[in-house]
């Protein structure tokens, strides 16, 4: 059974009625890494947010199946508890709330949902230390307010760290590479690769504008998104082709085939 199945998904911005997604079809098998590439404004980020349950967008048509069940009626937190994790393109700063407190609340909300006992302080710290060690992340993170005063790189690393602690079934990485220098990019990519190697049951949807991230996180499948639709799907070589030739030829091909 596919972990994620998106069928003819249409979505608009609820406030302005602007149509962003115009019939997205996508199927992901368990354990795969998929990449969605596309120009700015093509709808990649919107797709991630719609999957995660952001209410700013209104789905007007279509369906999203997660492990065979529609999640359309689920709230954002229910989707998260079921195993969907969105790593933000622009992680927000949350003054006054430490990563430690917030993350423990998140982990325990998920555990309660699964009928597992809540982690006490000691087990939680153990889990955190284990993940920090794996990712090579410094500990001071935990006692600072979530992302407050963090650099772009620190914010992205905090996203990957949270992802590691929450350990979702499906990780949506929304432009995780944007604003990162090559060193930060490597650290983030290595983190994702470690998580992937550790557990092949987990699946990853990587959204990116550039091919360079895909040098480090090698996708099984690459999709090209233009104007709210996936117009081409291929293997990792498609990403290289896009890097070389740009997006225009895909667009022309797509138009020609209509």
């Amino acid at each position: 059974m596919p972990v994620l199945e998106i069928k003819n998904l249409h979505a608009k911005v609820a406030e302005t009625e602007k149509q962003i997604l115009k019939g997205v079809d996508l199927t992901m098998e368990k354990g795969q890494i998929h990449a969605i590439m596309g120009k700015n404004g093509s709808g990649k980020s919107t797709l991630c947010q719609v999957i995660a349950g952001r209410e700013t967008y209104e789905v007007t048509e279509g369906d999203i199946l997660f492990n065979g069940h529609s999640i359309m009626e689920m709230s954002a937190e229910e989707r998260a508890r079921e195993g969907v994790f969105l790593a933000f393109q622009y992680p927000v700063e949350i003054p006054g709330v430490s990563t430690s407190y917030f993350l423990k609340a998140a982990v325990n909300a998920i555990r309660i949902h699964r009928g597992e006992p809540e982690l006490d302080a000691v087990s939680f710290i153990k889990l955190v230390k284990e993940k920090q060690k794996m990712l090579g992340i410094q500990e001071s993170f935990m006692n600072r307010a979530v992302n407050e005063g963090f650099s772009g790189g620190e914010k992205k690393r905090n996203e990957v760290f949270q992802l590691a602690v929450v350990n979702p079934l499906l990780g949506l990485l929304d432009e995780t590479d944007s604003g990162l220098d090559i060193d930060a990019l490597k650290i983030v990519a290595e983190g994702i690769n470690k998580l992937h190697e550790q557990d092949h049951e987990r699946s990853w949807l990587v959204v990116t504008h550039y091919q360079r991230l895909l040098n480090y996180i090698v996708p099984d499948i690459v999709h090209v998104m233009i104007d709210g639709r996936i117009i081409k799907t291929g293997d990792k070589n498609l990403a290289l082709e896009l890097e070389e030739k740009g997006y225009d030829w895909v667009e022309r091909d797509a138009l020609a085939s209509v």
Partner: protein
Amino acid sequence: MTQLADKIEDMTMSEGPAWFEDFRAAGREQHERVGFPAANDERWRFTNIGPVTKTQFGIAEAASGGDMFDHYTFGKDAGVELVFVNGFYSPELSKIETLPKGLSVNTLADAASNGHADIIRQHLGKQADLTQHPFVAINTAHLRDGAFIHLKRSTTVEAPIHLLFISIGSDQPVASHPRVLVVAEDNVEATIVESYVGEGKQYLCNAVTEVICGRDCRIDHCKLQMESVDSYHTAVMQVEIGKHTQFVSHAISIGAKISRNDLGVKLAGQASYATLNGLVLLSGSQHCDNHTMLDHASPDCPSHELYKHVLSEKSSAVFKGQILVRQIAQRTNAKQSSKSLLLSDTASMNSMPALEIYADDVKCTHGSTIGPIDDELVFYLRSRGVGFEAARHLLTYAFAADVTRRIKVVPVRRRVEDFMARQHGLPQDLRINDLGAFDEAVIR
């Protein structure tokens, strides 16, 4: 004459020296002259004080503090605790046995009759001007008792001095008019807490506090207002500080149907420093009005002001922050900020900075934000599995924690934390420190 004043003459003024009558007479005269704030009075523009002025309040009678005392006493956390119930001093509930050297704490009436008459006559009514505040006139007209704190030169008092004013309302509306006078000489360090709490139906607590500080002092003041939500609370606090003195105020407004605080600090000595922090937490149809006045009357004085409001349901609040920089007050550095979180569409906030600057070398900044919780922050928390309500509560708690965490008096901070945890369904043992580091920006 107004209804409140009708009652004044019937009072039996058993406590205090005979010369208190001179003060009462002056208060009565002023009240007869000006009455209550008129509907078109600019200083009362956003606060309808009608329910207070139209109610016929009797004079509160002595009562037992009961549960209220158990709930709000600092116990062993207070060095000194003076307890008043309906304005009457309760020697049974109070704790004044072991005073550090240089500190005297007493009831105002007793101190004025026994040994402190001169210093009280010298300072009482000098800071809180009854011609400026209608409610000071009313308080003065009812002058009977309250607290007197005297800190002699070079006195350091570690444990907080707690003044606990309990009001017990009954079927008949009653009023009490506590009066506090604090005189600190030079080089004094002390923490003073005023708690105003109560239960029961419509009563009025109309307090006046005057603080006079010499030079090189460090005075921390907390006011915790957790009156019954069926009551009215009006309070004027006027402070004057000398050279190099640092005065820190935390004003927490949680209770009362209608409350109004006028807090004024005069920076009278060079390089004195005032910090005014406020937290207003309202729900239902509560209303709270904070008027603050920072009077920069000397050069080289910094002042910092941060007022935060969390308003839910149909509650409303007013913040008016006046900063007066007199011509002499060169190199003033005043920073004011008012932030308000509206948790419902029906809550409302009026925030008004008012800067009056006569010196030319000054730095004054002010900022005001009013808005709902940022959706993006809520979504971020939800996308990690935290529920919608829990996310909102957590963000609200963190917003308020920006003020709460600065409160050094542990029993006050605990009470605010507990109140918020109760109101926001957070774990009862949640402490600000659990949450981590802070700043602003929860508001869009």
